[in-house]
């Protein structure tokens, strides 16, 4: 080897090689820093919201002369200050339940139609229109609800009262326009329809072809394919989609504030005007409240925060419990 090299020739300088490792590592470091930073930032934001809400809430609740959980009144400026979230909790939960009961089946139906029934030419425009519903600002829904939906629903309310009044919840005992929790529920249903539909549709489109063919090859009709393969696979997706919708329904503010004619009574006659929700109550009273009144409203916001956390936790539990049977490991 050495003998072939002339002695007086200096050895060729080593070719400067680009060092892929170092640039790669720098990229790794930057990316790691960014992603870790984002993760930490999220935790910090959540924690500071929780601390803020809790601190201000404690300030307010410690001076509440009523029972914060059971009082049917909201008068933090009174002497003594009395306020409670019972009506708001009731109104929020009931209107959201109505919204879910109406929206989830319709959304799943639309999603199945788009993913499995509609010809392709029709599916894309329908999906687009549904997504467009999500782009409408909530105040527009509120105005539409107050100007169109409320008068329109009066006929439906009369009909429900006449034929289903015996169920108690559809008995209308007060005259007045349909600015009720029931109307709010319908409006919320329309508002959460797009998110529930989109998420369900995406999940239904991901059903592995081989799962559907398994059902087809057994002689399943289209509906039976959906029942055997699509719905079981999409089950946890439907739950997640519903929870996203529920989250929006629980926190919806402007639309509810525009439609509802609020009062501080709890009534299971859902068609009667009145009631209130957390977000609606905060929006309606925050502007004119003094510092203490705002703390009281923040305390109600804390309850909504906890409610949302509980709902999400419950959804995760439901999904986790069926994990063994989920389509993920197929």
């Amino acid at each position: 080897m050495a003998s072939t090299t002339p002695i007086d020739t200096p050895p060729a300088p080593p070719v400067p090689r680009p060092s892929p490792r170092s640039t790669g590592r720098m990229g790794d470091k930057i990316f790691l820093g960014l992603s870790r930073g984002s993760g930490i930032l999220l935790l910090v934001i959540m924690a500071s919201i929780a601390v803020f809400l809790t601190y201000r809430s404690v300030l307010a609740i410690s001076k509440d002369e009523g029972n914060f959980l059971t009082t049917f009144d909201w008068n933090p400026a009174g002497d003594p200050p009395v306020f409670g979230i019972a009506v708001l909790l009731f109104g929020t939960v009931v209107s959201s339940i109505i919204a879910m009961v109406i929206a989830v089946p319709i959304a799943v139906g639309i999603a199945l139609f788009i993913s499995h029934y509609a010809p392709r030419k029709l599916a894309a425009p329908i999906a687009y229109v549904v997504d467009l519903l999500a782009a409408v600002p909530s105040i527009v829904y509120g105005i539409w609800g107050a100007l169109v939906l409320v008068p329109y629903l009066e006929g439906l309310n009369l009909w429900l009262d006449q034929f289903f009044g015996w169920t108690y919840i559809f008995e209308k005992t007060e005259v007045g326009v349909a600015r009720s929790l029931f109307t709010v529920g319908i409006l919320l249903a329309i508002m959460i329809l797009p998110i529930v539909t989109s998420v369900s549709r995406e999940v239904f489109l991901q059903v592995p072809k081989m799962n559907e063919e398994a059902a087809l090859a057994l002689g399943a009709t289209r509906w039976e394919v959906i029942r055997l393969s699509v719905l079981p696979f999409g089950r946890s997706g439907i739950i997640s989609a519903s929870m996203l919708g529920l989250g929006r329904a629980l926190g919806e503010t402007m639309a509810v504030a525009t439609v509802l004619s609020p009062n501080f009574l709890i009534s299971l006659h859902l068609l009667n005007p009145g009631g209130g929700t957390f977000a609606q109550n905060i929006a309606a009273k925050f502007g004119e409240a003094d510092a203490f009144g705002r703390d009281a409203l923040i305390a109600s916001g804390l309850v909504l925060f906890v409610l949302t956390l509980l709902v999400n936790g419950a959804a995760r539990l439901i999904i986790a419990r069926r994990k063994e049977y989920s389509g993920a490991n197929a």
Partner: protein
Amino acid sequence: MAKRIDISGLSAFYGSHKAIEDISMTVEPRSVTAFIGPSGCGKSTFLRTLNRMHEVTPGGRVEGKVLLDDENLYASNVDPVTVRRTVGMVFQRPNPFPTMSIFDNVAAGLRLNGSYRKSELNDVVEKSLRGANLWNEVKDRLNKPGSGLSGGQQQRLCIARAIAVEPQVLLMDEPCSALDPISTLAIEDLIGELKERFTIVIVTHNMQQAARVSDRTAFFNLAAVGKPGRLIEIDETERIFSNPSVQATEDYISGRFG
């Protein structure tokens, strides 16, 4: 139980692309017929025309006749759903219903066909799982999910699910290609037992497998990429592998192409 299949002049299309052209053959009852040929020659497409699964693919279209005994599966008054209840299918990758228990997987086809009493279902499920040589391995965990089984067990579960509805014909689309050699052997033994009761058609890439399990073998080929696949010849398996009448068959099985 088992029926003869007579195919004449069958072509299948994906949109405007013709995938297989003018195939005619007879599949004997209570026997195993293997389809071999290079990738893309249309064996699987052809198999899927035999239970009208091809038309499920968007753009899928079929011309020609498939007679099951004397009934044309493609007659205008025949419901593809009924066809698929008569002609069962096992797929390349095991596809048990992931959300269902082992028991429910086997019972799924029966439940589609009507309501059964619990005791009847129990009997059929046990019989089918025994028929698929799976009973002893799963009898203590029938209510566990089918997706928890090994790949080979899942494939036998799929076979149990297919035979539970007592089909006339059992189509198998490369049923062992996702399995290890031991599981493959188990399935091959099972095929040998099942042919006593069913007409079996199996697509395979593994020529040894075709030689081991089948009574008759059909060789498919295509003239060039993009051209439709055609049936080159069908004969007794022994003859195809020892003394085929077409040169292309010999070239393929001796490994000269494909």
